[in-house]
Each structure stands twice: as structure tokens, then as C-alpha cells.
């Protein structure tokens, strides 16, 4: 059976042969189409690097990266990515930032001029969904860190990508907003069914959202453990305090502390 995403035994090194930093070594990850996968691991273990390799932003030194049946040599249009930092363009308003992918990715690119109103409504809906209604015309520096992150999440979603790569998209948010956005994310995934790969530090978040959680080792990163989360959907916040839920987070916690200790 071939997977939608296949990372096979990849090694990625920043810098030269002997002086560089080996960020990933022998990392393997397989994700089926429509699956929601979370990646957790100690800080600096190479999670963001894994996402860069996966999206084709950074070439791997060894191993193969295959997305949608083709080897990834350069970034793909079917991918939507939210980076660890919001990385909004400072000269664009929030709305224009969210609409940026539409100016690049086909078929939207060709349709944008004539269907501007329709696309703008879509962007406004998304912003409203993450609680940013009324901030469309504000510039990024007029938003708080968490608001910028939410805007960048909208930017990742606007062109309805088949593969969503999210690098700690809720990292800078308070717990209440974060939990609210988990719900939003789950609804979105259940209706549109994109393939999602989510990096997070929050084990509750990982277990709430994902079908499967992968634990990475300390740098150089590779996958050391995978845990299938077979809780029924839609999952609820109350559910995160049940015994079956906490058993899973507890198990993951132990694997991560092992990974940290091994470093």
C-alpha cells in the first residue's frame, strides 16, 4: 500500500559535511491520505526541520521524501504550511496576508481578479472562525503574537490544500483560545478531510487532534515511538480529562522523557 506522505530514512544536515549540524538521521514517517498525524519531541530535536524536508523547502542529504506519489524536489502547490513564527509580510494587511496564497497557487491565481469578492469573503470567514473579525485591515505589527499566529493559520488554510503542515500553530496562544481552536481545527478536518501533519509541544493537543502521535528522539531526530489514538470523534474538551485520554498522554510523556534522557 502506498501512502500519501512517505518519508523514508531521511538524513538532513545543516552546513558542511563535518562541521555542520545533523538535524535528522534515519527519520521515517508514513501518513495515509486524509489522516491527522501529530509529531512531538524534545525542543531542538528537528521537528521544524522535518517539516521543512517534507514541504521541499530544504533538500535532504539522504533518504527519500514522497508526497502524492512523487518525489519532492521542490515545494508543492498542494501544500499549506503554517510556520513556527507567524512570518506575516509586514507591508500587507491581515486580509491581504491571508489572501497571499491565492495570488500564487493555481487555479486561484488565474481566477482571483475576477472572483475577488468571493475569495475575500472566504478569507473573512476564516478570520472570523479564528476570532479575528474586525482586524482585516490591521497590519501585522498592530496584532498581538497570538493574533498573528492565528492569521498565519488562516493563510495556510485559504487555498484548501490537500496537505497541511502545521508547526506549532497554537504555540503563542493562551489555553482558552488554544482549546477553542482545537475545536475549529477538528471541525475543519472532519468536513474537508485534508491530510494534516501537526508539530506540537502540547501532548493534550496532540492526542485531542491526531489519529496517531509520533515521538521523536533528541537531535539528531528520528521517530522512536508511534501511538495510535483510537478515541471516537468528534472529541470534546471534557474528554481530555477522562482516564483513557490521560493514559495516552501519560504514555507519550514517558517516551519523551526517555528521549530527552538519552540525549
Amino acid at each position: 500500500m502506498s501512502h500519501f506522505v512517505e518519508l523514508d530514512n531521511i538524513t538532513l544536515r545543516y552546513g558542511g559535511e563535518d562541521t555542520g549540524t545533523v538535524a535528522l538521521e534515519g527519520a521515517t514517517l508514513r501518513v495515509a491520505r486524509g489522516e491527522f498525524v501529530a509529531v512531538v519531541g524534545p525542543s531542538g530535536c528537528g521537528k521544524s526541520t522535518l517539516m521543512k524536508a517534507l514541504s521541499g523547502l530544504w533538500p535532504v542529504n539522504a533518504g527519500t521524501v514522497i508526497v502524492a506519489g512523487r518525489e519532492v524536489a521542490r515545494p508543492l502547490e498542494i501544500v499549506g504550511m503554517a510556520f513556527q513564527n507567524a512570518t506575516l509580510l509586514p507591508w500587507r494587511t491581515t486580509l491581504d496576508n491571508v489572501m497571499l496564497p491565492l495570488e500564487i497557487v493555481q487555479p486561484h491565481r488565474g481566477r482571483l481578479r475576477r472572483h475577488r469578492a468571493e475569495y475575500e469573503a472566504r478569507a473573512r470567514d476564516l478570520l472570523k472562525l479564528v476570532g479575528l473579525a474586525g482586524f482585516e485591515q490591521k497590519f501585522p505589527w498592530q496584532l498581538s503574537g497570538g493574533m498573528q499566529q492565528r492569521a498565519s493559520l488562516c493563510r495556510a488554510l485559504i487555498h484548501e490544500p490537500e496537505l497541511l503542515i502545521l508547526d506549532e500553530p497554537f504555540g503563542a496562544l493562551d489555553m482558552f483560545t488554544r482549546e477553542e481552536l482545537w475545536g475549529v481545527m477538528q471541525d475543519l478536518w472532519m468536513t474537508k478531510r485534508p491530510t494534516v501533519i501537526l508539530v506540537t509541544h502540547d501532548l493534550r493537543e496532540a492526542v485531542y487532534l491526531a489519529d496517531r502521535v509520533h515521538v521523536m528522539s533528541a537531535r539528531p531526530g528520528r521517530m522512536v515511538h508511534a501511538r495510535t489514538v483510537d478515541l471516537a470523534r468528534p472529541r470534546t474538551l471534557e474528554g481530555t480529562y477522562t482516564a483513557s485520554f490521560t493514559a495516552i498522554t501519560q504514555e507519550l510523556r514517558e517516551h519523551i522523557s526517555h528521549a530527552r534522557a538519552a540525549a
Partner: protein
Amino acid sequence: MTDTTVARSAASARPAAAPTRKPWLASRRNLERALPWLVVIGLFLVWEVGVRAFSVPQFVLPAPSVIFESMWKWRVPILDNAWQTLFTTAVGFGIAIVFGLVTGVLIGSSSLIYNGLYPVLIGFNSIPKVAVVPILVIWFGIGTVPAIITAFLISFFPILVNVATGIATVEPELRDVLRALGARRRDIILKVGLPRAMPYFFASLKVAITVAFVGSIIAETVASNKGIGHLMMVASSRFDVPLVFAGLLVTALMGVAMYIVANIVERRMTGWATRGMDGGMSAPQG
């Protein structure tokens, strides 16, 4: 105990009421606005008084009053020649903008072009432009064209370097946002490189416009029959020192006027870079 509290609150009440009674100049904003004028007026006053007190001969240093008188007397030829200088400067500067922008983008976005072209440009920029004017005269004859070309040659470099820097220093994170969407090189330059370079570009215009003036006037003094530079040459050959100074003053005025225009354009276009603070210049004091 209570007494001191009362005394303190009375003391703190005083400064709050004070601003209404402050003279107009005491407000920091107004002072900042008036300061350049005060400095200029002060300078002229000191100059005038100095010249009179030491009875400096007119052909060494004329007093401001004499200069203004001469300015008024020769207003028609001055305006006529100033217009010519303004025209050559504007045309040369316009070409410099286009050329500087295009080559700046090319050099900034390709390390190959950068490595190939940059040393040549540095070398070229080191040539004193006065030395180039005679060559231009041989090619194009005496007149408007050498002045335009000199203005262009002297002013494109700061524009080019700034645009190239702005594009070359785009944060990799911002570039990755576009790359992750499968954007082509051209899209990345258009959507990230150019907007990001705009503050650099507009800042360079302020420098470029003033040196463009210098270029025009150099060419006019060496090889022209029109323009402020030519006027000053003629005046000095007739030992009409007040008129020479009048020419200098007009040049300075045109330079300042152009600078102000460039400054206004800059603020309009790149508000995001100064984060909407009004008066980028006075910002550091908050």
C-alpha cells in the same frame, strides 16, 4: 503626615496645569518644526553682523543683504537658469531611478550577477564625475545632454546599492512563505523582494536627488551655456561675487525642496516600515 501629602499633591498639580500657559515655542513639536528656520535666520544674522563689523570686502564675502539684493536684481536670468538646472537634474534623476531599480533588482536577486557586476560598479563609482564631463562633451557637445548624463551617473549608484541590499537581505523566513507555496522566482521578487526593498529605495532617493543636483551643476560649470552652474561661472568671471552666492543659495534651496518632496513620497509609500509613527525623524525621542 497629611501635610506632606497635601503639599505633594499640590506640587504635582502644578505641572499638569502648566502646558496651557506655555508659550507656543515651548512645545517640543513646535520647537522641532521651527528649529531649522531659526538656525537659518540665526546664521544669516551672524553672517550679516560679522561682515559689517569687520568690514569684509564684498568680493571676498558679500553680506546676506547684498546677496538678496543681487538675487532680486537678477531674478529673471536666475529663474531661467534655475529652471534649466531643475530640468536636467530631474531627467537625469528619472533615468537613474529606472536604471538603479532594474539593476538593483537584478544584482540583489542573483549572486552570480552580484559577483560579476558589483566590482565593476564600485570601480566605476570611484571615478570622479568631473573627469567624465570632458569626455561627454567630446561625444555630445556642449549643452544639456552632458549635464543630464552627469546627473544620472552620479545618482544611480546609491539607488542601485540600496535596492540590491533590500532585496538581498530579505529574511529567509519570508522567502520560505512564498517558496512553500511553490512560487516561482519572479513571484518571490515581486511579492517579497520589491516591497521589502522599498524603504531602502525611498531612503536612497533622498541622497540621490541631492547628488543629482551636484552632477548637473558640475557639468554646467565645465561645459554648458545654460543653468545655475553656468550662471555662477559667468558671474565669477565678472567678479560679481554676490551673484555667485545668489546662485549657491538658489541651488541649496532647490536641493532642500527636492529633499522634502522625496521625504514626503517616502513617508507615503513606506508607512509600514516606520510603523505608522508620524514624523519618522523625530521618532527616537518618542
